[in-house]
């Protein structure tokens, strides 16, 4: 990534009063406001069904917001979708790659959807295949890849068009330790090169390790945000995990308590 863009005045992602109501009546987002400055590594934490994926879907055009606004580097995600989507790379939670395509085609077509010229696509594909150690699989169909390779391909695909905002939806769910650490290494590097990252995860350790700022989302609302230390302090607990448990109303699960209880029982 050679193009080091000057920091834009507009935030990478600005969400205001976002509401998403599904036709079934479920209100997945109940007026969410969120701002992620350019260059930040931002974590979005919350239990299953809290609205994390819905927020991501609304930001990438995979769901249409019921009301409220989403701006990506100043471009409205609905009315100005072309510019907005060009700036975003999405690595979704599911391994949603097409079985019929080869590794190279997966990246090449994606580049084409984003309007990249042939020469540029070719160079970028080679660059990404090298970065993600997929060179040997270039002409293999994606269904022949291992789970770990599919994960890496999804990340490579999200980066293909050199997005300024990378959205990672639970990138390490069900991933082994080596690959998790490998992915951390990649995304940290990408962030250091200037790409803003929005990460959703269930692994609090992951958020603590990677994110400079974290927001808690629960029941379709942003409940709190700050650095991991700030959050722990605000909830009056010792760790991000305990802050999280306070938030979801399950503080009895705290590992700090478990230790104390055991000590009491032993006495």
């Amino acid at each position, binding site marked *: 990534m050679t193009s080091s863009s000057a920091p834009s005045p507009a935030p990478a992602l600005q969400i205001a009063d976002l509401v998403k109501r*599904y036709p079934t009546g479920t209100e997945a987002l109940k007026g969410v406001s969120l701002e992620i400055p350019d260059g930040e590594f931002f974590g979005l934490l919350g239990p299953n069904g809290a609205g994390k994926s*819905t927020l991501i*879907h609304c930001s*990438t*055009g*995979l*769901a*249409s917001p019921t009301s409220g606004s989403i701006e990506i580097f100043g471009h409205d995600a609905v009315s100005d*979708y*072309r*510019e907005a*989507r*060009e700036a*975003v790379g*999405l690595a*979704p939670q*599911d391994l*949603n*790659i*097409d*079985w*019929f*395509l080869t590794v190279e*085609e997966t990246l*090449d*077509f*994606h*580049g*084409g*959807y*984003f*309007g*990249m*010229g042939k020469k540029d696509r070719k160079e970028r594909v080679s660059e990404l295949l090298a970065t993600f150690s997929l060179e040997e699989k270039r002409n293999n*169909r994606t269904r022949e890849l291992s789970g770990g390779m599919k994960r890496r391909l999804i990340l490579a*695909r999200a980066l293909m068009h050199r997005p300024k905002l990378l959205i990672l939806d639970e990138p390490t769910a069900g991933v082994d330790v080596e690959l998790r650490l490998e992915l951390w290494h990649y995304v940290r590097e990408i962030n250091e090169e200037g790409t803003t990252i929005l990460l959703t995860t269930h692994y609090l350790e992951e958020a603590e390790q990677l994110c400079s700022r974290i927001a808690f989302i629960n029941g379709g609302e942003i409940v709190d945000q700050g650095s991991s230390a700030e959050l722990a302090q605000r909830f009056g607990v010792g760790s991000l995990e305990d802050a999280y448990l306070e938030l979801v109303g399950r503080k009895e699960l705290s590992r700090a308590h478990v230790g104390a209880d055991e000590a009491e029982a032993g006495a």
Partner: protein
Amino acid sequence: MIRLVALTRREVSRFLKIPRQTVGAPLLETFLYISIFGAALGSRVGELHGYEYIVFVIPGLIMMAFAINAFSNNSSSILQQKFQGAIDDQLSSPASPGQLMLAFTLGGFLRGLLISVITFIVASLLVDLPVKHFYVLIPALFLVGWFFASLGVLVGVRAEQFDDVSFAQTFVLQPLIFLGGVFYSAALLPEPYQTLTHFNPVYYMISLVRYGFLGVADISVWLSLGLLTAATAGLTLINYRLFKGGYKLRR
């Protein structure tokens, strides 16, 4: 333009990856029809509209191959990508609803075109197949192909399971095509079947394509062309609206 080309290449590369299923099988099927109805039974049928039976059925078979392949390619491709979630890659790209719709339509259209061109070439080698009205034949086949390619897109977008797609093909499409007069001239049917046939849109299509090849039509060429153009345009518009609104594509 780069976007549309990439989206279309994706669709074409899909069916070219499984050529045995997407090109080989339909070609074999068409030639089985030609051998059964043309060569084996044809000698017993005698002439229709002044043509040997085998020559009479080939235009309908070419059209049927175009229609069914255009339809089934698009309905399966879209449903399969929805199943895998792979379609999100296109939907979250800056491609416009119009580009998405066009590319998905073109995939099956091009597959149908490929199969009907091969069928035409091989059939021309086997029998003396005339092309009487080239300038009617080309728009007629284009419209028929586009109509069924669009219908495939519509069914694929609406479908929630593979059964929805095969239902449309087996219980709606095939009866309409078979009863539209691929293998016979509707003019030979007794009442009320002859009148009923007029409500079958495929009847107008076959009449038109047969006119392009053989110069004989059951109904007015202009009426057929007009109806087919209107139906194809209407269907394309419906699809455009679906893609614009994100119906069953975006959450």
